[in-house]
């Protein structure tokens, strides 16, 4: 079954483990500035929200690419950037209405979430279950919306770390 990243902001504590995992896996450096997933902080509301590419059906970035540098990985559903093909024209960065394709001035290429080839590190690193790698049909925005609506306004939320096998964080075999 096709899997997808499920983001549940109500579980996020803003720890940035996902950003570090992402940047380390993809850039070899612990560097939130190079992460494809971003955690947004809403200070006045006391809320955090992880956010990244949803690998949307419309694939605005992929269709807008003039040189076929963004292609669909049929196994994971990810729209992947081929660095060797990307010319750095940045059209995908304005075409993506979710703002999740970014230009990396250092390399002259664009970067976006590629689901780590089907083993996304952000989900492995998330200590609270705000980011999970789960069956695709359980992800939709509507479900998140419905959940959020049920959540009684004002009740204190406290987010507990989940017990995880340390192997879960490690490099995939």
């Amino acid at each position: 079954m096709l899997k997808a990243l499920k983001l549940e902001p109500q579980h996020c504590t803003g720890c940035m483990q996902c950003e570090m995992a992402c940047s380390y896996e993809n850039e070899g450096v612990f560097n939130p500035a190079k992460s494809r997933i971003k955690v947004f902080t809403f200070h006045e509301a006391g809320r955090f929200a992880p956010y990244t590419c949803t690998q949307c059906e419309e694939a605005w970035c992929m269709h807008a690419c003039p040189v076929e540098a963004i292609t669909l990985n049929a196994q994971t559903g990810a729209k992947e950037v081929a660095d060797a093909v990307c010319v750095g024209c940045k059209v995908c960065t304005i075409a993506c209405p979710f703002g999740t394709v970014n230009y990396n001035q250092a390399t002259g290429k664009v970067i976006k979430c590629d689901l780590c080839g089907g083993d996304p590190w952000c989900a492995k690193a998330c200590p609270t279950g705000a980011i999970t790698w789960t069956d695709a049909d359980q992800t939709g925005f509507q479900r998140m919306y419905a959940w959020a609506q049920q959540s009684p306004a004002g009740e204190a939320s406290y987010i507990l770390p989940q017990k995880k096998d340390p192997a879960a964080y490690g490099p995939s075999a």
Partner: protein
Amino acid sequence: MDHVIVGAGPAGIIAAETLRKHDTDCGITIIGDEPEPPYSRMAIPYLLAKQIDEAGTYLRKHDRHFDELGIEIVRDRVTGVDATANSLALESGASRGFDKLLIATGSRPATPPIDGVASPGVLPCWTLCDARRIIEWARPGAEVVLIGAGFIGCIILEALATRGATLTVVESADRMVARMMNATSANLIRKWCEHKGVTVHTGATVTAIEQGRAGGTLAVALDNGTTLNANLVITATGVNPNIEFLDGSGIDTAQGMRVNNQLQSSVADIYAAGDVAEGIDFSTGGHAVHAIQPTAAEHGRIAASNMAGHTSRYHGSVIMNVLDTMGLISSSFGLWDGADGGDATELVDPARYRYLNLQFEDDRLVGANSLGVTEHIGVIRGLIQTRVKLGKWKDKLMQDPTRVMEAYVARTQAIGYNAHVL
């Protein structure tokens, strides 16, 4: 069903591929008049900059891509359309029938009405053929004059500088990229270019191009009295849709080929997509030619759906551009020049070449200009095109427009409703 597509640019190619997805059996023929495999004009600046070879500009990288999809590509040029007989006249003398026709002939550079514009050493920058000649002429130390400081003029500056050319830009408008950027940001782009060693003339028109005194050079005369020496003159004064061959066909044209929200022309079996189409402008609701890559791609897909019998309606294209001028990245979206009665906010940081301008209508974002800001920039399109009501976030953005991504996440994700406080 026999589908014919005129034009082998992105709109035509994406339409052909989309048709094949919808219908595995139909005939699909693309008629293109250039000798190369389908390629992207968007990639030419990177070819000039030696980042890629010609194959790097090709729209599809796999040799047998079109064969495998059963898409026939014919090299020819359509000279006329008989809309009642569903037939095309070709330059080769043949004619070609069709059940459904997509016109995706794109646009071509305007030739400025200047004496001597046909001289050797005066070129547009549009096709691979042009690119080869520019590469030949723009040798190290060459003096290059660009007529027009629009999108194309700006985006090839870096490539030409990389090739060691000395650059002068002549623009008749009062600023650079006047059709994309407002005065504040355009002036910063100018400052940036000048800092990088480019000479910029604005509000100046080229009156004549003559053979210069020195062998092989050109003398470019401006109406401000300046005469510039040039080894190469590149004209980049805008593009016009290729619609002349439609004359007499009865197909409705204005600036481009008029299409409805299904990309259908005034003739039921004939569609248009990309630079040639005068489609619906999302921001104004009226018709406009949006000669940009994302619109070409969307047009191609939607036109093809409709040609294949799957009714697909288009809400119109948002005009948007992203431009890299010698490393300074600018972008524009929608009504960047403002909406009647709408609010606007801007942040200017000239020292760091950063600029952001947001335009609102009520509490919705309708346009933007940015400079030096690239992170999450696409979300501006998202906010415009989904007409997100910003609520309290409008005031936050009025105070700090850089929080545009936060505004989007807050207003569209569950988080925004979670606490009922955003």
